[in-house]
């Protein structure tokens, strides 16, 4: 069971790295959003620094959702999902392996690139560190929640938008606590730790529960 978990994780990472795999797509999309924001808002550094964490978080949320609709759809289309059903690993473990690979390929680069992109929004040292920490703590929740939507829409041809509509309401609490923790990192007025801990709780809860929901949705595909 552990062998298939590792093999699937490695396969999905390798696929993400190959041409058309979309691992770099998330970061490029993130960069585009962050780059055009100052053009739209204007060069007011104080304003940019104030709304910077929110913009980076929205960009991270959208970048995460970008490739997520293909998470199970690609395997459903080429028949791989059928064969994964026939391995001795439970479907929940397979979902977890795929989510973890997606997080590593899509979200981890966002976490690493965020400090660099934060500079473009006039964030300073402490705020940058806070931003990276909140993205690291919060993006697993986005991936695992998104997996539920991806599993529900796996058999639909153009399911990407439907997935976003299903998942965005669930992602709003993550966004709220993520942004509030990230914005308080640079300021002394509001505490950083309470929203940050709630964010971690969201991630842990969704990592524990979402695989069961997604696996149930995938099982119903065969009926």
């Amino acid at each position: 069971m552990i062998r298939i978990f590792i093999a699937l994780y490695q396969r999905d990472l390798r696929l993400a790295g190959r041409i058309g795999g979309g691992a770099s797509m998330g970061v490029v999309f993130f960069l585009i959003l962050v780059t055009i924001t100052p053009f739209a808002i204007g060069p007011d550094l104080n304003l940019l620094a104030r709304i910077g964490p929110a913009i980076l978080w929205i960009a991270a949320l959208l970048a995460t959702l970008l490739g997520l609709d293909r998470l199970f759809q690609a395997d459903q289309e080429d028949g791989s999902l059928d064969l994964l059903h026939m391995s001795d690993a439970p479907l929940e473990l397979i979902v977890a392996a795929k989510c973890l690979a997606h997080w590593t390929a899509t979200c981890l680069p966002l976490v690493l690139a965020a400090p660099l992109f934060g500079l473009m929004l006039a964030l300073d040292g402490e705020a940058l560190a806070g931003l990276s920490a909140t993205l690291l703590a919060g993006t697993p929740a986005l991936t695992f929640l998104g997996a539920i939507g991806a599993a529900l829409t796996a058999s639909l041809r153009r399911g990407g938008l439907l997935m976003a509509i299903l998942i965005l309401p669930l992602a709003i609490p993550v966004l709220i606590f993520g942004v509030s923790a990230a914005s308080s990192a640079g300021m002394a007025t509001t505490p950083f730790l309470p929203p940050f801990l709630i964010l971690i709780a969201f991630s842990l809860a969704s990592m524990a529960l979402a695989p069961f929901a997604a696996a149930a949705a995938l099982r119903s595909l065969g009926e």
Partner: protein
Amino acid sequence: MSAVLTVQNMTLVRGGRTLVRGLNFEVRSGDALLLTGANGAGKSTLLRAIAGLFTPASGVISISGDDIAHDETPALQAHYLGHSDALKGALSARENLDFWAAALKRRGGLDPLQALAAVNLAHVADLPVSWLSAGQRRRTALARLFVAERPLWLLDEPTTALDAASQTRLAQSMAAHRAKGGMIIAATHAPVGLEDAAELRLGAPA
């Protein structure tokens, strides 16, 4: 090894239509069963039901044998070769088989390179699967049957896109699999080299 697959009183309903009603059959070690019937008669659905990928309206599918735990589902003892090849175009043939060996292997099995040699594809082992022709892709999918040893082969139109030489090779591997005590259930319209097999003709859809 000796094993037996038993299907009892199976009814398959798909999209509100009853495809198969009250079907009973048994496949023993060394046996092959050929599913024939018109398009839409339920051949693929029956194979998917045995593979655990489709829930029958009623009936029991069970497998038993020397080295098979008594509560095990046929899905864990079976290879399913469906219409789609379950290969990733961006990965090489060898990488694809490496993955399926890790995912499906429970007992023995050939090394992926040996399996590719068995379908005469050793020379393209490191090419991305998307570069291969339809027949070569089908042969790579067939090589999956060798990387993980499983007693029951469920083959849905296995000869699709195969050239004459590959069809002969497939017939030989099927004979070798049966000689080792394996079981084969194949759905097909064309002759696949299982001339001595029992035939199960599925009726016209009701």
